[in-house]
């Protein structure tokens, strides 16, 4: 009842924000991000490229956090699901001449199907088991991509048509921005719904969830399949952005990159990983270019960040943000209270 | 110093995480005494024993044993001081044989002949363990497991034995065996703090008792007096 009234009281702007699952600050960041590639110095091609990479990472982070953060299962074969979508779309466009725009959406199906089967097999077991099995399945697909040369060209790389006939990165930036927003809004709305409550309950305590009448396995499978479906879709973008696809898209190290971003950003927020993805990619690219004679230095930081965050600040940036807003609210309340008292006598 | 109790718990607060279960519990056990702690389900009896044994860290208050403050010590150190806790869940090593379980019970004892001696005593107390010494704990019946847990707890030659509901789920005959064993131990000079649901019987055999309800001690006294108490008779003895 209260909710209904609340809803009725909201004005159009607030409603729009609510539909998009954004805070005013989030919207501001998004708008800034959208115009960023137009303003110098950010309008240089290589910087826009970093932003595309960053947004791609952000979108993956959202899909990854959807399982990792909510039902508390680390999909350790995540990159393989991305790769599955990528290869499907690429192969269809190369062998059958299908438009990449359609292929991207067809790529959803194999990823979702494999995700679903993995889920059916493993998600009734302890969560860690699903994680390890997903990893094995990822390894198997990685091996297949390397070995089925007649389909994938193996490690030489599969050349596939790009989405657009342009060498500019800017259009791709807007495409991935839209894809990111779609992933975020759809998944965030699910997380906010009753189903999302069930996910959280399962992630926190499977037994308690079971006794309160939730069928954990079913919800876990739904969640896992959805996440894999988005991974497959994003994979299609990857293939037709770079125009060349190598088996290493499926490699475990790619999963680890996404995982690090999600964990530093803050699990179970969806926005945390997304928010830091672009700064993170920028920082890592900068480390890489400054210390170009020390390859792998950025990865040392990956590892260190992950360890430190896991031990000392498991909530990541999202938790820090929550802490800041609490402080802000508290101090405003104090000021209000003090102000009132000064006014009253 | 001489007349200080063996175990002295003062104003103990304890619980799990943010959930406080025990409030301001004070209790003493003298050397050689046989004391019981009774109360309804969920009163916090097990939590109390775990707090003394160092498996749950207390939130406040003090636990003293033989004059040493032990409320901040980890469970393994407390065990070395001579307290043996036999939990409700038994916590046996299911993948080990009876013999190995007993050997683990004597983990803190280095003297081999002493271990053998205690083991003989345990076998005498529970002959069934001797018969089944090669059997895995995981394949034993509930009653046998109870005895094994008691036996394992005795292997460290404890000064103080904390026993949590030894008769839970046992047939009357088995219950009698367990109580008889506790009597023997008491005769041998072991101090016992017993938590039991079988209040009638417990008040018959113990010297003193405490009644714990909703995390607070509401009654204490000699077992004889307690069994005459109106509240106890109504709530626990069903009279």
């Amino acid at each position, binding site marked *: 009842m209260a909710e209904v009234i609340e809803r009725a009281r909201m004005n159009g702007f607030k409603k729009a924000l609510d539909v998009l699952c954004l805070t005013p600050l989030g919207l501001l960041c998004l708008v800034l991000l959208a115009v960023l590639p137009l303003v110098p110095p950010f309008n240089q091609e290589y910087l826009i490229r970093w932003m595309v990479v960053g947004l791609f990472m952000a979108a993956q982070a959202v899909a990854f956090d959807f399982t990792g953060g909510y039902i508390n299962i680390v999909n350790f074969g995540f990159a393989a699901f991305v790769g599955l979508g990528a290869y499907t779309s690429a192969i269809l466009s190369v062998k059958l001449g299908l438009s990449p725009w359609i292929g991207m959406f067809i790529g959803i199906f194999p990823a979702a199907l494999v995700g679903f089967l993995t889920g059916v097999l493993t998600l009734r077991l302890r969560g860690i088991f699903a994680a*390890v099995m997903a990893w*094995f399945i990822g390894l198997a697909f990685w091996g297949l991509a390397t070995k089925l040369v007649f389909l994938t060209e193996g490690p030489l790389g599969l050349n596939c048509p790009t989405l657009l006939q342009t060498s500019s990165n800017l259009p791709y930036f807007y495409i991935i921005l839209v894809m990111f927003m779609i992933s975020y809004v759809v998944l965030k709305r699910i997380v906010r719904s009753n189903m999302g409550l069930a996910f959280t309950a399962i992630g926190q305590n499977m037994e308690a969830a079971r006794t309160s009448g939730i069928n*954990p396995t079913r919800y876990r499978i739904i969640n896992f399949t959805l996440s894999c479906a988005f991974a497959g879709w994003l994979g299609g973008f990857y293939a037709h952005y770079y125009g060349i696809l190598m088996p290493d898209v499926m490699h475990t190290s790619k999963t680890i990159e996404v995982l690090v971003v999600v964990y530093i950003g803050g699990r179970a927020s969806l926005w945390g990983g997304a928010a830091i993805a672009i700064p993170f990619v920028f920082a890592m690219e900068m480390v890489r270019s400054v210390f170009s004679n*020390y390859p792998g230095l950025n990865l040392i930081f990956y590892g260190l960040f*992950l360890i430190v965050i896991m031990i000392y600040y498991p909530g990541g940036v999202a938790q820090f943000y929550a802490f800041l807003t609490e402080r802000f609210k508290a101090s405003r309340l104090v000021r209000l209270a003090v102000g009132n008292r000064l006014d009253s006598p | 110093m001489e007349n200080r109790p063996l175990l002295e718990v003062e104003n103990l607060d304890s619980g799990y995480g943010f959930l406080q279960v025990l409030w301001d519990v004070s209790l003493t056990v003298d050397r050689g005494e046989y004391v019981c702690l009774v109360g309804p389900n969920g009163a916090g009896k097990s939590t109390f024993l775990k707090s003394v*044994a160092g*498996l749950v860290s207390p939130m406040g208050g003090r636990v003293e044993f033989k004059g040493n403050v032990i409320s901040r010590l980890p469970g393994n150190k407390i*065990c070395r001081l001579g307290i043996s806790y036999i939990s409700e869940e038994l916590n046996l090593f299911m*993948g080990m044989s009876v013999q190995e379980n007993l050997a683990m019970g004597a983990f803190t004892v280095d003297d081999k002949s002493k271990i053998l001696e205690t083991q003989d005593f345990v076998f005498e107390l529970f002959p069934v363990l001797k018969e089944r010494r090669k059997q895995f704990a995981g394949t034993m019946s509930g009653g046998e497991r109870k005895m094994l847990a008691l036996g394992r707890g005795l292997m460290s030659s404890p000064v103080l034995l904390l026993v949590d509901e030894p008769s839970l789920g046992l047939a009357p005959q088995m219950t009698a065996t367990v109580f008889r064993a506790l009597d023997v131990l008491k005769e041998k000079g072991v101090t016992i703090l017993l938590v039991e649901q079988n209040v009638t019987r417990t008040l018959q055999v113990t010297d003193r008792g405490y009644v714990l309800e909703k995390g607070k001690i509401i009654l204490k006294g000699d077992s004889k007096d307690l069994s005459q108490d109106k509240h106890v008779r109504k709530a626990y003895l069903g009279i």
Partner: protein
Amino acid sequence: MTMEKSQSLQLDQVIKGLKSPAGITIALSIVAAVAASIDNGFYVIVNTIVTGGMWALVAMGLALVFGVMNIVSFVHGEFFMIGSLTAYFTFTPFSDYLMDNPHPVAEALLPILAMLASVIAGIVVGILCELIVFRPLRKRTREQWVMNSFVITLGLSTFIINSSQFVFGTDFRGIVSYWDYPTLSIFGVYISFDRFLVFILAMLVLGLFWLFMKSSKFGRAIRAVSQDETGARMVGININGIQTLTMALSSALAALAGACLLFMYPAYPTVGLGPLYNSWFIVILAGMGNVVGAAVGAFVVALLQVLTTIYIGEGWDYTIPAACIILVLIIRPSGIFGSGVRGILDQ
């Protein structure tokens, strides 16, 4: 009980054992190995046994860490890498020196010294990991320990691999052989002296490890902790100490394997990935946390890989075992030997 009766009892047990998933798998493996040997020569069996012994060392450590500390470790391969690096840097300088000043006894003992150095390096790194990473995490994480510790091992692995690359570069640092002795011939199969001795060594270590776990006080304490942590604390076992010991043991075993296999797998930053994959196949196949199962499973997986390489081709030796194991698990999620220690089922 008469002699006959006890014999028939044993027979019954053997038949029952054969009907179990473990029995079926082992029997099938033996049949497959024999068939492949008839088809391809006896070296199939020799190869399987030699590599299986090594994977057993690595996988047992992994199973141990899972069983005792409940850590699904991704960093285990890095201990292998550290072992092979240490062995390389111990072995080569002395070996170069001995090249100029030959000395038969020193030449025979030097490889052993290199392996010892690796074991020590493994112990040190294992203890550091426990003290700096796992223990602080354990203090702070209660509920989600399994997932969190798993993720932290990913961080550790990334850190160690890339630090090693940073310091030592991406060169392959290998040796031709430890012992410069002539090749042996067993049942008409030629086997290098290195392989032979390394296999003997692995078996010796496996035996010692088994004895340690079975009958030493601390080995028993390790098993006790893995079976019931609260129970272990109740009988006076210092859990922190046991966890440190476990970590040290498991990393020492992996490092030893790395040192032993230096002549086959040269040391380079990501050399640990292969052993890691293999030992995970083994541990999942055998049942998570089942240490003895892991030792047996190692030979099964080794056979699977040898057969894959022979009949399907190079480069399939991760894909095919992964697929087979996924199949096995569809039928039996708890692994063929079952989890002797902690169940993997939620129920």
